[in-house]
């Protein structure tokens, strides 16, 4: 019996340009958000996603046909794409939004990704996303995309093994109780967790090679997607500063103070 042809995998890695994790965040004077005039870089979980795609290729070699990275963001987001190309992706797609426009929301992003996947002539077998972005911590995009596409999803992955012949992947997920291993059929949406891998540094030769890799520019209207936010942020404030506590002499005094403070669970 002829073995089924090894399906060549087309991998898509959506990435986001976020405020760098090391920056000390400050709320802006209008209390509408944080000061964004600071250093930005690729969302760390997305770096892990790019790294995983590159490692998959190192493992499966020619079975990984293409690794495309995509970002939805202002013009500067192309730098983030270039970094991903320097890490080993083959090509990039930049869905450019105007500089002043609000950050796209997970549902909008998922719809845009759905449109992009439908556009891809060669199809997409594996979408690897970061589990969440460190600016909004939404943790929704991957799940929404899987829902829209009707695909399998494996989130919070800490280990991925792909079997191209069986067109399956077995994924270890980090869940509250520990680890869970599931087997999924391709096509698959994966989201990465911290312990999946340690991303490589873009070496200088790869940075230079990345210059020649193509970046396709698209707009939201090219995809037929509306990225207008459906959520309105009312106010952003810093958490209240910690005030000193009080020392009490006895448990009875403590209970009394809690009662006085209106903590009604205390009998």
């Amino acid at each position, binding site marked *: 019996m002829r073995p089924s042809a090894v399906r060549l995998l087309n991998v898509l890695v959506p990435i986001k340009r976020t405020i760098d994790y090391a920056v000390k965040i400050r709320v802006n004077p209008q209390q509408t958000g944080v000061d964004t005039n600071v250093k930005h870089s690729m969302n760390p979980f997305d770096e892990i996603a790019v790294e995983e795609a590159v490692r998959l290729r190192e493992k499966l070699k020619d079975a990984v046909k293409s690794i495309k990275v995509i970002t939805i963001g202002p013009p500067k987001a192309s730098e983030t794409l270039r970094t991903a190309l320097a890490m080993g992706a083959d090509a990039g797609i930049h869905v450019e939004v105007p500089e002043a426009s609000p950050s796209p929301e997970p549902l909008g992003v998922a719809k845009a990704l759905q449109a992009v996947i439908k556009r891809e002539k060669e199809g997409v077998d594996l979408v690897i996303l970061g589990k969440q972005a460190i600016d909004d911590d939404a943790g929704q995009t991957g799940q929404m995309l899987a829902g829209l596409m009707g695909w399998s999803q494996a989130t919070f992955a800490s280990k991925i093994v792909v079997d191209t012949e069986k067109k399956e992947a077995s994924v270890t997920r980090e869940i509250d109780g520990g680890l869970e291993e599931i087997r999924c059929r391709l096509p698959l949406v994966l989201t990465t967790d911290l312990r999946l891998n340690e991303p490589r540094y873009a070496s200088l*030769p790869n940075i230079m090679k990345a210059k020649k890799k193509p970046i396709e520019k698209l707009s939201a209207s090219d995809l037929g997607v509306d990225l207008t936010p459906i959520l309105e942020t009312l106010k952003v404030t810093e958490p209240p500063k910690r005030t000193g506590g009080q020392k009490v002499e006895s448990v009875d005094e403590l209970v009394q103070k809690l009662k006085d403070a209106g903590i009604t669970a205390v009998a």
Partner: protein
Amino acid sequence: MHRAAAVARSVKASSVLRAGLRQHAAARSFSASATARLNSLSTYTEDEEMLRESVQRFANEVVGPKVREMDENEMMDPAVIKGLFDQGLMGIETSADHGGSESSFTSAIIAIEELARVDPSVSVVCDVHNTLVNTIFRKYGTKDQQDKWLPQLAENKLGSFCLSEPASGSDAFALQTRAKKDGSNWIINGSKMWITNSYEAEIFLIFANVDPAQGYKGITCFVATKDMGIQIAKKEQKLGIRASSTCTLNFDDLKVPEENVIGEVGKGYKIAIEILNEGRVGIAAQMVGLAQGAFDKAVPYTYQRSQFGQPIGTFQGMAFSIAKAAVDIESARLLTYNAARRKEEGKSFTKEAAMAKYWSSVVAQEVSGNAIEWAGGVGFTRETGIEKYWRDSKIGAIYEGTSNIQLNTIAKFVQKEYS
């Protein structure tokens, strides 16, 4: 009314025309490249910015945890050197055909600066290998020599530049290492001292005199490998950049084939003079990175440490001292990057390189010294790594041309211009 308006219009038109002509005339007197938008010195290409970020991360994450240990042990961790090679940082300007990264000189300067922010010892390894060793092969090597040596230097073999001797430092051309022709080989005898990278290096560029009667015009540059019989003797115990190996080398009838002469016989002095220009910009970058690293370590501490009810960094005396240091670092950085860009433009940059190296070494010492004082007792203990920058800074005024030599060079330019 009509007339007046017409006159006004024509006056306006002609003055605009005249202004345009003036501008055009001014533009015509610049070179073609300068009529493109003139950028500030804080302008880098996308690749250069990506490189800076990448080296920063590599330096912080791979080199950072090892800095103290390497300094205390006076030994470079081989994993760090391998990391530099793997990141493509040891063939920055080398062409891709030869396994290099085919990047700009400024890219090398950026890498050197960012490495120095974390560890000036690691920075000098990268600097000497790129700005001295690689560049000599690229500029003066024959095609065969380039094809043979550059790939090795880009991939995994560390290089060393051997000019100074016990009796010749600033007076470099008084070197006494001799090379004598014997058939198709040269036999080299002598000693070199103060040689950076020598403990770990495998490829050595050795300057020897083939005919002392000709004075400096007998100096020739040879390439030799360690296994040809180079003896690595005493490793110096130093005040600073302790992890960077500095050894004495002995050549006892070292036999080197004649195809290992770089450039022409008797033209080694030219190679040495010209190459040290680029090396100076590299050292300037190392010193700028050092100053920045010390600043970055000490200043945040001053906003956390409170005395008399406020963070010490907010006391005016401290704030002024910090502000002055920031000015000094910026000035040293601008001198360095301007010298680098001038070199890329093909402009003469000897004076600028000397200025950058001299000033950056002054700034490095001053800022790192202040950094210790800003951090107080904590700055004085070795644990925080602040004092290391001060120890490391001292060499800046000494190697690759002492500060007096730099001032000499600058003075000669001034004299030429003004007398």
